């Protein structure tokens, strides 16, 4: 397959999926009770002017979409209206301008809040995910190489147990232990009110806050990556070309390094991408437990505060992040697999 057509196909698919998510995000909130726009004009936390501004911004006087005045309660309407005047179109064009609405709780634009939080989530996921992937693959390689020995069984047992731990519960237990016995902070990203003498101190404070959440992350995902790596590598090591490599006189180490790992990496990349949904689920739980100011925590807070614009925005951003990460994984696959890059 040519690389350019592979690329174009993946990009097109990602764009289509994002479009689907945008449509879903609009209708979900219109069909289920709790439309953020309409809830907003009744929310006592907003002033009369703010409510009027929402009414205009979201075109609440307009039909939801052609033929439907409203979806909840279901009211049929005129099919001949100009599509540009429907709520759906106004929503879409708002979105294009980065307009995600105003948070009820903070009265700030949702996009601004989420923009700050996206980086915190990336920091947390990045730290935990890199550790989990590196450690998980290392242990997985060891377990596969020593398949059906005590080393393998120990790793397998640990992984199955780690897989069965609810992420939030592991977080709670580690938080309880860390804050009681290690004097680690009980949450957040920085110590409130702390004045830093220099940026090293600031970094150290961040590291202290990041330690427990990323440890939780690592433990939960370590087992999973280890299991995947192990089974993938056992398959690869059963292939004929490994026997060829052995016949050539390569040592086990050389075979693993030069012949097995790259082949095992291909399915690994795909599976890591398929697991991104779990990664995000993990972020929601960990950020909720550790009050980490990220996107996942935003969902938790938005639910508890009935802050619908925040909920809608955070979900949209999370979903798009996963789609983009998936796309990156696909592109990485195209880079790793010579069968794709041949032109």
């Amino acid at each position: 397959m040519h690389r350019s057509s592979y690329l174009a196909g993946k990009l097109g698919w990602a764009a289509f999926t994002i479009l689907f998510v945008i449509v879903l995000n609009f209708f979900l909130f219109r069909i289920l009770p709790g439309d953020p726009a309409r809830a907003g004009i009744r929310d006592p936390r907003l002033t009369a002017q703010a409510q009027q501004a929402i009414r205009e911004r979201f075109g609440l006087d307009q039909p939801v979409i052609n033929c439907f005045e409203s979806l909840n309660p279901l009211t049929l309407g005129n099919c001949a209206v100009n599509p540009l005047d429907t709520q759906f179109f106004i929503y879409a064009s708002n979105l294009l301008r980065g307009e995600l609405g105003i948070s009820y709780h903070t009265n700030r634009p949702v996009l601004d809040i989420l923009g700050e939080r996206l980086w915190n989530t990336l920091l947390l996921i990045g730290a935990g995910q890199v550790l989990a992937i590196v450690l998980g693959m290392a242990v997985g390689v060891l377990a596969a190489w020593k398949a059906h020995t005590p080393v393998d069984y120990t790793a397998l047992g640990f992984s199955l147990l780690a897989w069965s731990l609810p992420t939030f519960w592991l977080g709670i237990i580690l938080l309880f232990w860390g804050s009681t016995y290690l004097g680690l902070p009980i949450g957040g990203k920085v110590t409130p009110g702390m004045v830093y003498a220099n940026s090293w101190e600031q970094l150290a404070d961040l590291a202290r806050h990041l330690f427990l959440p990323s440890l939780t992350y690592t433990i939960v995902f370590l087992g999973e990556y280890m299991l995947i790596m192990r089974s993938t590598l056992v398959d690869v090591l059963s292939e004929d070309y490994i026997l060829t490599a052995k016949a050539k006189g390569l040592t086990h180490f050389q075979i693993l390094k030069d012949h097995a790992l790259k082949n095992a990496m291909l399915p690994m990349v795909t599976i890591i991408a398929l697991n991104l949904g779990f990664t995000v689920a993990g972020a929601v739980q960990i950020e909720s437990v550790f009050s980490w100011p990220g996107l996942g925590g935003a969902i938790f807070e938005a639910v508890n505060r009935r802050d619908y614009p925040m909920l809608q925005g955070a979900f949209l951003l999370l979903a798009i992040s996963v789609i983009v990460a998936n796309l990156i994984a696909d592109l990485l696959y195209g880079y790793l697999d010579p069968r794709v890059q041949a032109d």
Partner: protein
Amino acid sequence: MMTEVTPHAHKQPLLEVKRLSVDYVDPSQPPAQALRDLTFTLHRGEALGVVGESGCGKSTLMLALMRLLPAAGRIVGGSVRLDDIELLALSEREMAALRWKRLAMIFQGAMNALNPVRTVGDQIAEAIRLHEDASDARALDRRVGELLDLVGIAASRRNQYPFQYSGGMRQRAMIAMALACSPDIVIADEPTTALDVMIQAQILQLLADLRRQLNLSILLVTHDLGIVAELCDRVLVMYGGALAEYAGVDAIYNAPAHPYTQELLKAFPDPTRPLQRLASIPGSPPRLNDLPPGCRFAPRCPQVFDRCHLTPPRVYAITSDHLASCFLVETQQTRGARHE
């Protein structure tokens, strides 16, 4: 019945295999006797064909010689000597150093025998780097080019991946890789299965040419007697993990002594008599973990008699280089002796 091997007969053989026996262990069953007391020799420049139905232990033999048996395989006895080195007594590290340098292998089905994510040239160069001084990158590159050239692949295709090669080219590349370190012996395990007839013929011709050019010793494993006739000097016919008949190629084709060899030849189309019906041997090979007490071939043998069911026959010598494991040989010999 003289074959061209006879001049070597008194020299020390390059490879000498004595009473090699391999079991496959399975905790829930008695071990499968995949190879029993196999004895043969291979001289420098000689091509030996190893023939038998699938499951007769051919592939096990190849893997045992390279000490590459799968986890369940156990070499339970015997000796494999390469010149004066006892291969079965080497440490794993010593054995690894010797693999490919002296004993190289062409695997069956080259599709999976080459690593799909590395270029062909790189995989050939790897073998050289491993066993020879390859500090001169340009010399190494030249050598890879020469090797590909030798097997009829344009040197410019060295940077391509196996999937960009046709089936026949992959097999050629595999042969080039096997020759990379100028080994003494090349073991070819069904090198032409999965290839179409034209390509088969090309590959066989290539092997024959290379053998003459490089004075290679070849151990050719196949179920196809036609290939053996084209390429080999001597033939080892195996049945149920043991030697059935071992002789020069003329003797095997013109005066087969073992009923199994005779049946195999009937199953093999004779180009001079194109309308002859192809025979197939009724029954199936023995289960290796439940062998008959007598001759392994007895249940399928058309010339079977009582004694065959009681004890396994020894290996009898018809001439100094024609061996067969069958009571018929003994009977004929004693009868012949009586006549004299």
